[in-house]
């Protein structure tokens, strides 16, 4: 399976492990992990698009469509300060919420 261009920055193993401690079927666990991954993906895209100006957004989605990770990173590093940190922070914030949800369930 192809990874997202930011996959190396986000570790979801803590969530997978927490789900592993719950009594879930394999299908249920996979479904929940899919929700996590998709939520992270949306949150990251939202953050990036919100940081870019209108013209740069257009350029970014074109690069996203081309699936050329190197091009994407060259572009983002030029356009957004501390982009890697911002992606990590976005993911961490969401992961905290998800862990809280697991504890409360």
């Amino acid at each position: 399976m192809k990874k997202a261009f930011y996959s190396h920055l986000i570790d979801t193993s803590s969530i997978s492990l927490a789900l592993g401690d719950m009594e879930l079927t394999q299908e249920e666990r996979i479904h929940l992990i899919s929700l996590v991954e998709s939520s992270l993906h949306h949150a990251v895209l939202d953050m990036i698009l919100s940081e870019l100006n209108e013209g740069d957004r257009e350029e970014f989605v074109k690069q996203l469509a081309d699936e050329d990770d190197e091009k994407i990173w060259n572009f983002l590093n030029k356009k957004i300060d501390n982009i890697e940190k911002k992606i990590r922070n976005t993911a961490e914030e969401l992961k905290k919420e998800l862990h809280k949800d697991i504890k409360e369930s």
Partner: protein
Amino acid sequence: MASNKYLKLKNKWVDKHRRISESLWTKHKKHLNWLSENSKQLAVGSLGSLILISSPGAQNLNPNQTVKTEEQSLIDKSTFLITDLKNILPSEIRPLTSDEEASVSAVLSRDFNMNVRPEIEEKRLNRSYGLIGAEQHLARYPGDTMSSHFDSQEETSLYYSSGMAPGLGAWRYFANSKESMTEEENLREKYYIAVQTFLAKDFSQRFAEYRDFFRFRKMLLVNPDNGRAIVTAIGDAGPAAWTGKHLGGSPEVMSYLERYDGAQRGPVLYFFIDDPENKIPLGPVK
């Protein structure tokens, strides 16, 4: 049977996912539309708002999927349906105003390519948006029991536990006998709903007319939270007003819509389908 823990967490994460997805789409719709139409990259909103909120069966689709399929296009439509309905429906579950009903009718008619209306022949129910509860199976013909009720082992394992109502539906049996039962009659029970016919305006004064009008009348049910829609038939009257529920669905209807009874119950839209030539099939709308 899904565990309570799973359902609780799933519901929470589906809501969270929806909020995140809506935020993304509200702010960046133009660019995301371009992305979903012009590339093999994922249709971000589609996956975000629909597939993943449905069921474990959808696990093969994820944010990294790179192949755009026909199914994805369908999901895109549903994503917009969810957003459109969210913009129309009130935050509280109350009867819709005429304007709201007209807007919902337009959206549903457009998205499902059928004539969907809150009122037909100047007859309407007491509401078109309300909480749905779970009903039991109904006897389709004299002698129908739980052991004869299902067409396959799979159906038995999925729906046996709901049991059969001790009484008959409001229109009594769906068919005169097992031998004479048509597929349509079979499906009427499978996809039946119970609605509060007795709360319709003028129902008591024009009882026979209303009874005949409602009998097996087709209605489109839509779960506005996941965009799932199903064509149903009115097969019973109920639930009682004191239950706090506004309509009931057969086990098959509830399962498809992903609605649950009890503390987790949720709302659905229920609108008449104008289908004078009986061309629209009962069951899930794909």
